[in-house]
């Protein structure tokens, strides 16, 4: 209900991404559709190789798409677009990468790393203005402005990830794709980075696409979650709904694998394992259907009936 009135910032429609040559194509993402509303945190969960990063990279125009549409603020941004729109998209959509040890240029100073994007988009800036922006961005993420003259190797993992966040913030984006921003970090640093991301969201009304494989983190930070398996989104729902009523067997397997800090129940836990052969799609083809308000699932008619039964109880 409430979703109807909210502005859709990003729409992905039947997205397909293909790698490899024409003769031997590999479809990494097929038929993926979802909307991201302004100001929300949308989570994309899946195993490695499921295509979650590919979707993120397709949105930010790193991976070319082979079919479907990506619509950002009412404009199509995949495929061939005008130079002027490309520039706007570059500024408004930013990405935070997974491994802070690998994603910063080791030979550049923090000042350059953070302001590189600005140099391309706002060419008219004077040196002073640029430096002011860099120190503002650094202090926004809780780093000292003096750090601008240092090299990445002088920082710890958590600080490096903050530099990664600063360099995306300096572009004043509306939409940030965070690709496993905390999986390479220690537990205590994780908490700091998560807190930073959510306070930035509150201050600036940012919209996040949060990509991760760890559902326990997702539950804490996201509003809605899409579960992706082998390039296909199998279930999409509001976070709490998904945790309360996981329907698709793959979602259930993922949920059962979350480690909990409770030894007694953890030692009795039975792991659910997802076996893709449990679906019989030979005759009855699966479809992307809305099973209840805002809860989508990939299933065929027979499964839908079962899932509806389960929801009633």
């Amino acid at each position, binding site marked *: 209900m409430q979703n109807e009135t909210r502005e859709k910032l990003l729409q992905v429609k039947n997205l397909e991404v293909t790698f490899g040559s024409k003769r031997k194509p590999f479809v990494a993402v097929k038929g993926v559709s979802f909307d991201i509303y302004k100001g929300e945190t949308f989570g994309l969960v899946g195993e*490695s190789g499921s295509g979650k990063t590919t979707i993120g990279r397709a949105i930010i125009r790193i991976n070319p798409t082979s079919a479907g549409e990506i619509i950002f603020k009412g404009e199509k941004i995949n495929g061939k677009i005008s130079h002027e729109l490309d520039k706007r998209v570059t500024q408004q959509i930013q990405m935070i990468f997974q491994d802070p040890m690998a994603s910063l240029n080791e030979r550049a100073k923090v000042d350059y790393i953070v302001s590189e994007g600005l140099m391309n988009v706002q060419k008219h800036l004077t040196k002073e203005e640029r430096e002011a922006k860099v120190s503002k961005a650094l202090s926004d993420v809780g780093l000292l402005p003096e750090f601008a003259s240092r090299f990445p190797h002088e920082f710890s993992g958590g600080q490096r990830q903050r530099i990664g966040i600063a360099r995306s913030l300096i572009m004043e984006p509306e939409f940030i794709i965070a690709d496993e921003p905390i999986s390479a970090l220690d537990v205590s640093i994780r908490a700091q980075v998560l807190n930073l991301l959510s306070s930035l969201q509150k201050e600036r009304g940012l919209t996040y696409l949060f990509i991760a494989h760890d559902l*326990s983190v997702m539950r804490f930070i996201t509003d809605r979650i899409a579960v992706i398996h082998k390039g296909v989104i199998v279930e999409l729902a509001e976070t709490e709904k998904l945790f309360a*009523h996981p329907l698709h067997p793959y979602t259930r397997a993922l949920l059962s*694998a979350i480690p909990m*800090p*409770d*030894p007694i*129940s953890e030692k009795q836990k039975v792991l659910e394992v997802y076996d893709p052969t449990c679906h019989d799609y030979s005759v009855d083809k699966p479809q992307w259907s809305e099973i209840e308000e805002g809860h989508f699932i990939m299933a065929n008619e027979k499964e839908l009936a079962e899932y509806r039964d389960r929801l009633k109880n």
Partner: protein
Amino acid sequence: MEQEVILSVKDLNVKFSLRGQVLHAIRGISLDIYKGESLAIVGESGSGKSVFTKNFIGLLDKNGWVDSGEIWYNGMDLAKFKTEKEWTKIRGKEVAMVMQDPMTSLNPLKTIGWQIEEALKLHQGLMGEAAKQRAIEIIDDVGIPEPERRYKQYPHEFSGGMRQRVVIAIAMACNPKILICDEPTTALDVTIQAQILNLIRELQKKYQLTSIYITHDLGVVANVADRIAVMYAGDIVEIGTCNEVFYAPQHPYTWALLSSLPQLGIKGEDLYSIKGTPPNLFNKVRGDAFAPRNPHALKIDFLHRPPYFEVSPTHKARTWLLDPRSPKVEPPEHIKNIRNIRANMDQKEGGAQ
């Protein structure tokens, strides 16, 4: 119940020399490891958890040395070992290690079979067909399907989880008594992580292994550990059985580690995060190393290093808060009801299936 001690560490001090300075990485740890148990060592990066266990297989970096202390295993003091020849008797055969990243700990140019056989040849003198048969048995043992076909494949033909199984297979090849797993699942997906932990647990039961897990994530070890040692700045600050550490943690650092788990976070509120950074071990640490970051720190924490206070025969913690003279400090509210966290969570949502 009297348990047999398999490895005993007595007041171990390890130092490193770095750029002319001396870093005191392990500051006087004493620890008994019992036969057949699984011990988890938990701490932030830089707390010395890896360095501590590397002493058991002689893999300390060249610039590090055991300054004082003893490591007793099978009547031998491992801390006195100097030459590679001495270490080969222990390494692999008695104590084996599974490293963190399965992508980098295998040789990409050799087949999986060759890499497992290498260990068999070196330690058990198996050759030719016998070695091959044994290698295939081991591959089967760690739950890799089609062992005969897999035997001939190269590491790049395996997924991350399967590679970690291969690494475990190599570690298990010589029937070690102690298996050290250094962050065995951090590089893996959640579902695969659960499978690998299950595998290690099964192997442990089957071969009466003693296993040591090293991890920074307390959430992971609830499932696998019998005992948990929490390390901070080169020292064990709290040790107890799994239930004791999770349900009745005593040290403020353990509280902080538990509180920062996203599983316990409340949506919309900030997650607890530990302020500041761990102490610089180049300098001499005075008092309790955690005191500067500890919101409950007492004056004495900055002056004198706390001794171990015994909570129960199996549970002790290094904090002045346990001294009868200190004020009573309650652990944070939300970590008190860790028990049944999953059940409580489901109730809040109106009952999940």
